[in-house]
């Protein structure tokens, strides 16, 4: 038996096995075929794959299916940003409609040194749990409880608890909105990342009541509303509220605020937002 013959037999035999197997597979594939739009997979690949649920669906693949099959809007993926929107638009031949970059913001400034407690809470260290036990331990019923439900649910660890107060790091936030949903006191809001001014308080209590409970709570003095034009800050039941659709520099308002619960863009980076993320181990 010469070498060539041997090689031929070998490859022939293996090929035979391969053909038999291949045929069987082909038959099986025919009988058990599953039809799925191949574009779903492609769109899912474009999406960031964080599965954060910010679009309102169970995960990136589900969102991809919604886009391709149900024609859902393509600008719902906050973590992906404009880049992803453009890619999907190009792939599916749809129009790209950019969304404004939003970040989460905790509308409370009352940390443990500035806000009073009403009782000594003992139990599960979780905001929802603490809220369920006699309404939470912070004296102000609008204040951040600081047990970190938002920080635990955040998929990118962008929320830090400092001195009993949750703080969002805007540069890390992917605006999935998970924290907004989980907060039992509904004091986390999505705000435009470039908004110039924020009121860090959610209390609708009257001034004297607020004053008793918190050093940095909005007392409803209305001074700030007079510092801005076109009603970018308005009063709503003793609380100054920023209308983010109107862009107004708020430095003057921040300076006038007697309780310092208003922060304006140019000093927010140094003062209001701590730079270093501490390692949350418990």
């Amino acid at each position: 038996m010469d070498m060539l013959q041997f090689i031929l037999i070998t490859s022939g035999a293996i090929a035979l096995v391969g053909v038999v197997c291949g045929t069987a597979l082909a038959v099986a594939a025919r009988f058990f075929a599953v039809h799925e739009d191949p574009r779903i997979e492609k769109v899912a690949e474009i999406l960031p794959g964080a599965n954060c649920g910010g679009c309102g669906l169970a995960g990136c693949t589900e969102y991809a299916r919604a886009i391709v099959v149900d024609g859902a809007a393509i600008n719902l993926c906050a973590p992906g940003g404009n880049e992803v929107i453009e890619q999907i638009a190009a792939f599916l031949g749809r129009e790209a409609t950019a969304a404004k970059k939003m970040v989460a913001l905790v509308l409370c400034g009352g940390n443990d040194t500035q806000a009073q407690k009403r009782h000594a809470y003992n139990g599960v260290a979780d905001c929802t749990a603490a809220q369920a036990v006699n309404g939470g331990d912070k004296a102000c019923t609008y204040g951040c409880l600081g047990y970190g439900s938002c920080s635990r649910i955040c998929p990118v660890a962008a929320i830090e608890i400092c001195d009993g107060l949750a703080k969002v790091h805007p540069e890390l936030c992917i605006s999935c909105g998970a924290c907004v949903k989980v907060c039992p006191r509904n004091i986390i809001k999505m705000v435009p990342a470039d908004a110039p001014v924020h009121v860090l308080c959610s209390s609708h209590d009257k001034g004297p009541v607020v004053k008793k409970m918190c050093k940095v709570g909005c007392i409803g003095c209305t001074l700030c509303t007079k510092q801005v034009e076109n009603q970018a800050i308005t009063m709503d039941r003793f609380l100054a509220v920023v209308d983010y659709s109107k862009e107004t520099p708020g430095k003057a308002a921040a300076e006038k605020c007697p309780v310092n619960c208003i922060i304006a863009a140019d000093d927010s980076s140094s003062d209001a937002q701590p730079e270093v993320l501490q390692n949350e181990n418990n």
Partner: protein
Amino acid sequence: MTQYILLIISAVLVNNFVLTRFLGICPFLGVSKKLPTALGMCGAVVFVMTSASAVTWLVHRFILIPLGIDFMQTIAFILVIASFVQMVDIVMKKTAPALHGALGIFLPLITTNCAVMGVAVLNVQLTHPFLKSVVFGFAASLGFALALIIFTGLREKIDRANPPKCFQGVAIALVTAGLLSLAFMGFSGLVR
């Protein structure tokens, strides 16, 4: 009959594929997070290992040996096993899409799984006759299934444990697998 029973005990307990021979670790770690998924994996592995050991034996005995090309054993076996796994994959995608999704990448990974390959090669090495090969393949897959099911139970406990950061995830799972294999040492000498 006795030899088959001993063969089964040996392959399931004494020389457990996962815990004593350390074969098939990849799906062992990969699909041990939820019991239903693990059970699905067990079913797939039992099917693939049993039928693959039968077919590889036939291929080896009636194609490779007569042609004198048993050095092609590895390639031929991979071909056969890969087709089997692909078959399971296709069928499962149609009949049990949820399970298919849960198994994910680990289903095709049986293809190159050393456990399946190992049973085929061991059959050749130990010169098992046909029936014994099939029984051995079946018993080995049962051993894999036993280890996987036990480990899945443990995994559910470990996933709620609180190991230090550097041990979280697969590391602690491997430690546990090691301890489990330590416990399985007790069966050594059971079949002499």
